[in-house]
């Protein structure tokens, strides 16, 4: 089973020195022509950083020829000064090797100062590999990005489940790379720009390789949960014991979405795309209603941006009460039915759930 010659460490060295670097790049993640929300959010934040540094904002779109073009038009509308598009059959679906090869070649050719990616499963897979290929620094899962006095990117991260915040910089290497959690930055509004199409530039990369690679045999994606844009998120934990009916009814009544803790997801009660927290999504709803959730720090970082947090838990000592505006000690199966009744008898239009602006 073992290969004849075991692999050995390959040292490639830096791609280019930081003083030659310019431009803020955003990898625009798209699947079948649909751009990820986090990529839109990054284009918004990237615009801020670009203005601060007086450098161009460049979007990079990789994909099958027919899909990459759609993503590129989106990126141009969202404010990128330039959109580099690589349409190639080998890029039709995300795969580590061709995506790393493509971005590596573009980065070496154009020498950006900053490269931002969404902290999605594919974004983290790609960023972790690419950073070593380029021999540069990467900060994972940032919750904010700022520019320091000397023009360095300051990547803000929270560690130890949200208790500790740190600022990470990358001074001696380029590009300065960071992945950012979905949901932490607002989405910019798309604007109609007269010369949008002129900003789109096809780029070519060499993706022929004899090396044996990972092959995608099958890919299944279910409908996406609109968690990051919902005005109300009803979160269920282990305390639901798998029964999400009341939570779904509550979410529906309030035009909201259902989220879950990792324990609930691991139990298979609900899809992983609905997991809230450090390794799930960060939500910023007007109201978060947590039911049967203990309040581990890995969960609460995901709702710290909520305007109002309501906790329903049968244990008066649950840590979530420390992170809540309103708490009810009680069995969720007894607390929710009268609440639902109350909200439903209420004049429906009083519960206008506007979309959160930004």
């Amino acid at each position, binding site marked *: *089973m*073992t*290969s004849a010659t*075991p*692999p050995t*460490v390959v*040292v490639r060295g830096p791609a280019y020195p930081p003083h030659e670097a310019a431009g803020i790049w955003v990898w625009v993640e798209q699947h079948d022509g649909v751009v*990820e929300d986090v990529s839109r959010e990054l284009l918004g934040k990237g615009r801020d950083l670009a203005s601060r540094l007086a450098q161009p904002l460049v979007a990079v779109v990789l994909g099958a020829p027919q899909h990459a073009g759609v993503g590129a038009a989106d990126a141009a509308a969202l404010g990128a000064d330039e959109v580099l598009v690589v349409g190639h059959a080998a890029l039709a679906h995300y795969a580590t090797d061709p995506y*790393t090869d493509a971005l590596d070649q573009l980065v070496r050719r154009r020498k950006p100062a900053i490269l931002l990616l969404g902290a999605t*499963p594919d974004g*983290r*897979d790609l960023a*972790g*590999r690419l*950073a*070593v290929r380029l021999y*540069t*620094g*990467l900060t*994972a899962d940032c919750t904010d990005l700022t520019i*320091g006095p000397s023009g360095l990117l300051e990547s803000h991260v929270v*560690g*130890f489940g*949200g*208790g500790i915040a*740190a600022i990470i*910089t990358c001074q*001696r*290497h380029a590009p300065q790379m960071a992945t950012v959690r979905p949901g932490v930055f607002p989405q910019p509004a798309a604007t109609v720009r007269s010369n949008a199409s002129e900003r789109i530039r096809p780029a070519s990369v060499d993706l022929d390789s004899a090396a*044996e690679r*990972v092959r995608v*045999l099958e*890919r*299944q*994606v279910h409908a996406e949960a609109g968690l990051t844009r919902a005005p*109300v998120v009803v979160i269920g934990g282990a305390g639901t014991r798998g029964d999400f009916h009341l939570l779904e009814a509550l979410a529906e009544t309030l035009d909201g979405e259902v989220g879950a803790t*990792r324990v609930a997801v*691991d139990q298979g009660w609900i899809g992983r795309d609905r997991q809230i927290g*450090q*390794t799930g999504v960060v939500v910023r709803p007007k*109201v978060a209603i947590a039911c049967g959730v203990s309040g581990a720090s890995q969960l609460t970082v995901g709702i*710290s941006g909520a*305007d109002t947090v*309501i906790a329903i838990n049968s244990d008066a000592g649950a840590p979530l009460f*420390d*992170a*809540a*505006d*309103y*708490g*009810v000690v*009680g069995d969720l199966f007894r607390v929710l039915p009268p*609440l639902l*009744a*109350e*909200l439903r008898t209420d004049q429906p239009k*009083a*519960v*206008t*759930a506007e979309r959160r602006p930004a």
Partner: protein
Amino acid sequence: MRIVVCVKAVPKPEEVGMNPETRTLDRSKARSEINPPDMHALEMAFALRDRVGGTVTLLSMGPPMFVPYLRLGLAMGADDAYLLSDRAFGAADTLATSYTLAKGLERIAATAGPWDVVLCGEESSDGATAQVPPGIAEWLDIPQATYVSEIAPGDGQTAPAIEVRREIKGGEERLRVPLPAVLSVAAGANVPRFFDPDRRAIAESAEVVVWDAAAVAADPALIGAAGSATTVAAVESAGRVERRHEMLSGPPEETARTLAGVIRAALSA
């Protein structure tokens, strides 16, 4: 199948504090544990060995205080354990850590024979980057698959390969991964086994091989602080969001009315 599992010991997150004077992390009062996501990598390794035979080797980079945690892994059923430990490895970011672990893997292959697959946890609860597994794969120039929830044994085609299930955003995919390769195992992919009481005594005296930088022929410029591309410019206690902490009590209908009022007010704000 020869399997290597990368594990690390981490302080229990809820016990790590801040030293207000030095403004650095205070781990002194925190007890440690095996990084919880690594337990899932261990379980996947044991289950794979149970199915197809072979060995499970543990690899870690860290201070000598990691030894008892590697012994715990031996008590769970691992065959041998290696700790990369050297003051020069300290203060490493993921670039230097993945290089060091890759050098350790190179040396394991040279000393104990080639391995087929390296399993890592999804992320570490202290580093929380998920970058180390792809980093190791890149340093060794071999394939990777992250967020793997299941391994199927190889399908016997010409080149050795395994088929895995990988979690992606809103779904999953099946991949055929040529070996040798590095996989990171999705947290929650399985239920980790408890240590084997019969192995406890054996494990307590079992040898953990400790290698320093010279033993793995690590380039001093690529390890520890020197080999790191990122610097921690500032650390502070995260400003916790101020919450009202208002507890509602009384009959359920009254509580429901109050809550409904709170929700309505918040939505129209």
